[in-house]
Structure formats: structure tokens, C-alpha cells
């Protein structure tokens, strides 16, 4: 029987050692009379070896725990990330530097335990807006808020109505921060709420609440720094939260945890 003509697929199969024995003999015979083809396939085999040389060492690297940990649910994920996060912050471990191509200032990332930096641009933009709003409104000694804490109920009702979802002002008094009041601000695609707090020394914190995060996946706590303003932010369903303050990261993280826990519970 006349042998089948040798095809390119046969030659590829020869390179990868995937030919059945009799076909292998036919291809070998063909290559003996076609030195140029034989040379080409030799190069391909060298490519195979070189690729293994180059990437097989990855197999022996220790696998980062963020890859081998099993997430059981979004909630648990968020809590765990928060915990890891705080540890990372205190240990000063892990640094990301984010170059915003079109941005004038830079944002320093202290950890990226929650996933890909390349996917987080929308939440990060929210954090930046929150930091800017913090910097704009907190220094105002006379009128930092539109509606004061003495009318908290009216404030919450008004903000909820305007941003189209029930929002609450977390109680941070146990941590030493009292509500000053709140205001409505323009967000990326609609109104957002800003609550402002201060402690006995006049140090101010703001909580920025947006409801236009539908396109974003839930995130763990993330941290960004904009000038002197530290921001913890996270996405929970359609809500995006950003807690900003010019205080120590560890303390801000503790407050962010409290805020998260309170907002996580259904309203009374």
C-alpha cells in the first residue's frame, strides 16, 4: 500500500512525540530525504525543551496561600481578607505601586490580598473620589456638613431617598468618634452620601457611601493613600464604602471593621 502523504500535522506530531509507531517510521524516512524540514523540526524540539527549562521552575515554587485557600462564601471571604489585611498592614508587608497613566498623583497600595489590581479600577476611582471629598469638606470649621447630627433621623431619611437605598450612619461612639452630620455629593453616576465624624481632639473621619457599584464584584477591604488621607474601601453588593481619615492605618482599619460589622447587620 502506498503510504499516506506526510502532512504538517504529522510533522507537528513528530515534534511532540504524538505519532503512532508506524507513522513515526514513515515521517522519519521522509525527514531523512528532507534535511531542511528535519532542521526545522529540530528547532521546534529545542523550543519545547527551552520552554520547559524556562517555566518548569515555577512548579517548585511555594504556592502563595492566597491561591490555595478555599473561599466558602463572599461574607467569609470579606472577613478573612479583612483579617489578613490588618496583619499585612501592621507587618508592613507587601507593596504595590500603582501607576495611574492619566492621573497626576499616585496611589500607594499596601496590600492586594483581595485579588487582581488590574480589575479594581472602578472601586479605586470611588476611593479616590472619597479621599478628595474628605479633603475638601473636613477642613471647613463652620459648615463641614449640610445636615447636622442633631437631625440624624432626617439626615438619614433624606440621604436614603436621594441615593435610592437605605443608608445608615454607623455608631462609632465606642471608638471615640461622634457623628457630625452628612451631605450629598455627586458620584460617578449619581448622588452619593458622605457622613462625617470627629473625635474629642477634632480629628475628622468621613464615610462615603455610593450605590452605583452594581458592575463590581464584592471586594475585601482595600487600602489606598491619597496625599495625607488614608482610605479603606470595599464593595458589598451595589454599595461601595470608603472610610477616609488622616489617622494611623491600624486605627482606621479597626474603625473600618466596626463600620462593616454594623452595616452588615439588617437595620433595626
Amino acid at each position, binding site marked *: 500500500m502506498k503510504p499516506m502523504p506526510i502532512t504538517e500535522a504529522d510533522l*507537528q506530531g513528530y515534534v511532540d512525540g504524538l505519532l503512532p509507531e508506524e507513522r513515526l517510521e514513515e515521517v522519519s524516512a521522509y525527514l531523512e530525504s528532507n534535511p531542511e524540514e528535519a532542521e526545522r523540526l529540530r528547532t521546534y524540539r529545542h523550543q519545547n525543551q527551552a520552554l520547559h527549562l524556562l517555566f518548569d521552575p515555577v*512548579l517548585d515554587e511555594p504556592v502563595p496561600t492566597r491561591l490555595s485557600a478555599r473561599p466558602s462564601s463572599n461574607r467569609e471571604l470579606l472577613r478573612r481578607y479583612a483579617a489578613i489585611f490588618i496583619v499585612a498592614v501592621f507587618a508592613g508587608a507587601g507593596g504595590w505601586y500603582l501607576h495611574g497613566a492619566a492621573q497626576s498623583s499616585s496611589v500607594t497600595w499596601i496590600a492586594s490580598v483581595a485579588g*487582581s489590581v*488590574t480589575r479594581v479600577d472602578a472601586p479605586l476611582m470611588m476611593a479616590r473620589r472619597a479621599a478628595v471629598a474628605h479633603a475638601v469638606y473636613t477642613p471647613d470649621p463652620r459648615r463641614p456638613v449640610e445636615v447636622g447630627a442633631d437631625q440624624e433621623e432626617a439626615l438619614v431619611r433624606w440621604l436614603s431617598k436621594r441615593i435610592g437605598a437605605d443608608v445608615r450612619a454607623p455608631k462609632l461612639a465606642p471608638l471615640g468618634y461622634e457623628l457630625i452630620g452628612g451631605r450629598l455629593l455627586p458620584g460617578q453616576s449619581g448622588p452619593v452620601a458622605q457622613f462625617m465624624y470627629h473625635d474629642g481632639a477634632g480629628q475628622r473621619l468621613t464615610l462615603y457611601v455610593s450605590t452605583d457599584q452594581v458592575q463590581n464584584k464584592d471586594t475585601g477591604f482595600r487600602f489606598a493613600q491619597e496625599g495625607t488621607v488614608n482610605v479603606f474601601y470595599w464593595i458589598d453588593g451595589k454599595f461601595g464604602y470608603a472610610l477616609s481619615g488622616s489617622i494611623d492605618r491600624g486605627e482606621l482599619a479597626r474603625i473600618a471593621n466596626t463600620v462593616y460589622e454594623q452595616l452588615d447587620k439588617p437595620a433595626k
Partner: protein
Amino acid sequence: MSDESHLLACLPRLRRYARALVGDRAGADDLVQDTMERAWQKLSSWRKGSDMRPWLFSIMHNLHIDQRRKPVIPTVALDDEDALAAPAHAPDRLVAYDLESALRLLAAEQREILLLVVLEEMTYEEVAATLGIPIGTVMSRLSRARERLRTLVEGRPQHSPLKVVK
């Protein structure tokens, strides 16, 4: 072996493949992490007794396609020594290093097939099933990938600083 340990056992191979596919360590591990998250969610949809690799690698393939469609904020991991340190000058790495630059220049569709065949040592049928494309497409892309790599490495000068070998 339980499904879970099966999945974890695939991790080193997923990382190797992702590193070769994406290039930088942080980006590759992000892709692996996304793949694992999806895999844990969908673990019940994996048919027991079947090979887990095609299932897992197809998850990664789909995520990588999604990622390629999105604009990327360029990032540099400060603690990633690879990003800052010069590549090792071990002589046996020189050929491979040139190949690595050339690999970056391949179309992603060609690169993924080459890597599944070479690193994962999948058969062409397995690659076709993993990527959900006809086997003829696998063969033609594989052939083009190899030839392009050859011309890149041998032909015109590469932009690699390690071109000079003495």
C-alpha cells in the same frame, strides 16, 4: 483523592501555565486566583472520574479572554524581584530568555495552544476540547506559533539585552 485535593494538586501546573501565558508573576497569580475561585464555585459541575485538567484549564482560558478584552492599568509589584532584578546570566538560560521575549510577541491564541501542548503535554484533541475549538484550528495555530517563534529567535535581532553570547 477528594475533589478538593485533586484541585489543589493542579495548582503548580496552573501557575506554570499562567506564568508562561501572562508573563509577569503578579498578573499570572491573579489569573490563577480567579481561576481557583471560579473552580471552587463550580466544583460540583466537574464530572467525577474525568480528567480535571481540561476542565480547569478551560476555566482559566475563559477568564484570560475576559481579561484581554479589558483595559489594563499597568502595575509593578515592588516586592517582585523579577520586576527589578536583571535576569540571571546562567549560560543555559540565554536561549530560553530570547525565547521568552519572542513568546510575548506571539498572538495570545497561538501562545496558549503552544503552551498547552508543550508544557502541559496535552494531546491535540485535549487542547481542542479545553479551548472549545476545532482540532484543525489547533494544528494550524500550533504550526504558526512555532514558525513565528523560530523566525523571531533566529531571524531579526531581538530587543533582549542578553543577545550577545560569548
